[in-house]
């Protein structure tokens, strides 16, 4: 795609936006903007989705700046707010330009200048469909691992013995602390439909409760000088007996 064609495409998208002045369409677009767009993959450095939508002025400068034609502007009627930049990794992933031209082109900070190193970008997170991943089925594929620009960090291989043969399994595992969400793995995945895909973090990431720590991740010494809390109620003289206490309602409702 040459520059002219790209500019043309940008203008078409913008044109749609400009042309959409009818009240109905305008409302529609507002609604679109207000809605969360959980599946959008945004250019490097994009603010969180709601802030991004509020900050992006749909100028298309990032799209023009991208040397790989990765970025596109959302057309009307799609899942994304019209005119905002996004990319589809299976078509063209982000190739992680070290100078981050798209971000530099952004006039509003919707693609944040706080992003100094392209490897720190977090466009999304790769997830593997274990059932259809050739490596997880025992084939020696691991293309994603080898193609990953952060190979060994964002994608590692774990080897496991295989009960049914003498041949070990090589499981690719994605690590969120290094995966940029560039989508090169998704582009490279050799299955008919990609078995590794990039999705926005909040679509895939869970969270372990704050009440728990993984025991083996850091050493914890037994505290040698425990400082007890100030005396609690039960060591103080009993206060006046309350009229109500937890559990009463259930206990008094009968029904056994």
């Amino acid at each position, binding site marked *: 795609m040459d520059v002219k064609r790209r500019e043309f495409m940008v203008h078409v998208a913008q044109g749609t936006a400009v042309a959409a002045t009818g009240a109905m369409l305008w409302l529609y677009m507002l609604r679109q903007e207000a809605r969360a767009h959980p599946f959008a993959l*945004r250019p490097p*450095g*994009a*603010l*969180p989705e709601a*802030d991004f939508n509020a900050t992006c002025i749909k100028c298309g400068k990032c799209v023009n700046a991208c040397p790989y034609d990765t970025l596109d502007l959302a057309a009307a009627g799609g899942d994304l707010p019209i005119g905002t930049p996004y990319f589809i990794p299976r078509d063209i992933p982000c190739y992680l330009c070290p100078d981050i031209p798209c971000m530099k082109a952004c006039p509003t900070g919707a693609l*944040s200048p*706080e*992003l100094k*190193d392209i*490897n*720190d*970008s*977090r*466009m999304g997170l790769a997830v593997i469909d274990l059932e259809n991943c050739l490596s997880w089925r025992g084939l020696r594929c691991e293309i994603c691992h080898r193609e990953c620009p952060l190979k060994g960090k964002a994608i590692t291989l774990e080897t496991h*013995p295989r*009960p049914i043969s003498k041949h070990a399994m090589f499981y690719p595992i994605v690590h*969120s*602390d*290094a995966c940029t969400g560039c989508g090169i793995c998704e582009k490279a995945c050799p299955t008919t439909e990609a078995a590794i895909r990039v999705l926005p*973090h909040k679509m895939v990431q869970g969270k372990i*409760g*704050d*009440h*728990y*720590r*993984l*025991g*083996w991740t850091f*050493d*914890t*010494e*037994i*505290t*040698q*000088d*425990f*400082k*007890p*809390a*100030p*005396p*609690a*109620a*039960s*060591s103080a003289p*009993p206060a006046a*007996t*309350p*009229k*109500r*206490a*937890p*559990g*009463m309602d*259930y*206990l*008094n409702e009968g029904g*056994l």
Partner: protein
Amino acid sequence: MGLSRRDFLKTSIAASTAATVGMPVAKQAAAAVKASEAGWQWDKAVCRFCGTGCGIMVATKDGQLVATKGDPDAPVNRGLNCVKGYFNGKIQSGKDRLTQPLMRMKDGKFDKKGQFVPVTWEQAFDEMERQFRRVYAEKGPTGIAMLASAQKTIQEGYAFNKLFKAGWRSNNIDPNARNCMASAVAAFYSVFGTDEPAGNYDDIEYADTMVLWGANMAEMHPILWSRVTNRRLGHKAARVINLTTFRNMSSDIADLEIIFKPQTDLAIQNYIAREIIARNAVNWDFVNKHCVFATGPYDIGYGMRPTDKFAFPAEKDVQERERRVKLDKYEAIAQRRTEGEIVEQKNTANPAAHWLITFEDFKKAVEPYTLDFVAELAKGDPDEPLEQFKAKLKQLADHYIDPQRKVVSFWTMGFNQSVRGTWVNEQCYMNHLLLGKQSQPGNGAFSLTGQPSACGTAREVGVFCHRLPADRLIPNPAHRAFTEKQWNLPPKTLNPQIGSFYAKILRDLEDGSVKWLWVAVNNPFQSHPNINHWLKAARELDNFVVVSEAYPGVSAKVADVILPSAMIFEKWGSYGNAERRTQHWRQQVMPPGQARADIWQAMEFSKRFKIKDFWGEQKVPGLKAEGYEDGKLPSVLDEAVKMGYSPEDSLYKVLFATPANLKVRWPDAVAKGHPNHVATLLGDGWFPEKALWQEYVPFTRGDGKDLADFDVYHGDKVRGLKWPVVDGKETGWRFNEQYDPYVKKGAGFEFYGKLFKAIPTGDLDKVTDPKPVSVAGKAKIFFRPYAAPVEQPDANYDLWFCTGRVLEHWHTGTMTRRVPELHRAVPAAVLWMHPDDAKARGLKRNDLAWVESRRGKVQIRVETGGRNAMPRGYTYAPFFDEGVLVNRICIDAACPISKESDYKKSAVKVYKA
């Protein structure tokens, strides 16, 4: 108004930027975690839940419990936890946590029919005392009782045991461990003469074959299961065999799954024994040196009441089998009798009697258990071809017999909760002993425990109606004398008559022989089988029920007084797990509101009584013991005065705050600054948990049960110790000279337990020479026959029903159902059944159904898929859900020897609700 919208946007952008922009997500998150942990204080503790006994670390800040983690230094779990263990930090903070004593009141006074109203501890104890004195005056020591727990701390168990047996001279204290481990204990006693396993969890890493007998370890011992799985994956020769009555999660990695008909494990064990003999595989060197052969009576009943006076009309036909049994085809063959023969159950009173037999007799006894006979009897899945089942049984025998394979047999409730629970435990040792595969790394029969301190608290401390600390028994005069000496009691203070066991306490409540009941750290009115009887006894009869609880469960609901209890990390304590590992912890946080530790409840209540209230003459109906007048406990007050006591001394002073104990002072450096609300509340400057521990340990020493000193367990480097701890060293494998300092040098093995080691001689049917023969140092290889379950499906109640746990919930769910995440994961009990059985009843998955037995009925949703796959004819529902009280259905038959209830075999019908 705090932040303006613009400020808010700015901060939210800055904060969330890290998520999508600034890379250092991980680093930043780690830093944030680290920052949030500033000021946290960590200490070691132990998981609150199952008998595995995983070590955890607990973090507190400003007096609040903020986090837990698996303890990487704990040899049991190496830093791992299961999903229940993951929530240790949340179990104490449920919204309806009981924080205030509650009493049923009407018009400002206690009233059995009143509503629960908050009261002070003083008021609650006043009423407890008034009722106690009324009942004790009327009925004496047998009129009061406690349903105790294998989830009490060791010190709590010790304190309540002492209060009941020494203070109140009542042996009516029995733990929920009765329904969990009693069959294992009875077999440890009869086979080895001493309680608790020879092996330890390291057996897993040595074993070639691991056989599960009625132990769904995948769900019930999740962390041990990950060790078993790791062994299976990492050791080429390792195999796992799952014997079960339905396909469960443990089948997932099993190499061999054997689905058998309930209770036919008895026949399968005898088939293995027969094969061992037939294939000339008896390890004669081992057997001749270390074993004898034994058997006992078969006509021992089913642990039900001797009378049907209290039975519901529908219960009477099964109840009849307590007195006489018509042998079915299989029993007839298995017991060398004729089909249809009526056998009067003549040995219900003395079911544990046993005598020596010859190997020839033993061989004759197992002879009928051929592959053809056992396969036809035992095949559990009607859809499995008989030949396939036969091949599996043969493979099972191959595994045991192969001299190249080390074999560990694991079991829990499938064995123990059976009307022949003791027998099947004994049979498991039978095969291991015949093969000489016992008490060696990777070789042994290993009884897993269900509860966190079944071993430590209930069994080692002897919180049973027939036990005293460290394998001592109530009927044994020498054991009583030793205990009286340790406890500084006048001779004959202890009651020589065995008290009421767990089920009997509830039956006593129903028939009016117990009228004052204290329940702590268990939930009998949900967990004991056949609860319709007990719910009625608690609420509708003239009984006084005290329940110490953390949450309002079913038992609290039927109580008269509810005492709010401190939970695990709110008090000092210790637990003993299934591999004899004793683990202690410090109090981490204060209990909420007025909640207080059970040990404080015992001691504070004991202050209200004087020794003269109990140590005078007491009537004990039915008491018969050498040196005692029938039906009476003598007065020991004169002797007490000679020992320096005053009749006016309080039980608190005599039993707990003794001069020796008062010397163990609080605060103590071992606390490292941790609080002790019990010591603070008692206020007389002693350290009860440490003092009682030090008072208890002499019971254990020199007898193969040795525990270490209190401070040793609290050492920073110690993660529990496996007793016997001799010269500071723990013991890996008991009875094996290489590992156990109690085995005589040169003996190789010595089964040195002292109980039941002088027995008569006889043949397969009877004693022929009553003169006791010493079998010191030997283990007994028992012949026990197959016996049919007392209740089996028939035309009316046409399905098997079995109950148990699920991984996500602990027992009756009082704790785990307060953890929102666990409740969300498994909100309600379901009834697993075969899709064809459901279809035949017009039911499909998620339909509401009635499950009805002779005893009661409940409504429950049907599940035809999921984690358990039932063969046709079988159903299973867990008992955690108080909305589905499955124990309304379950039969309260029990092993007549161990008195452990059989939760696994009720007959039910299922129909659309």
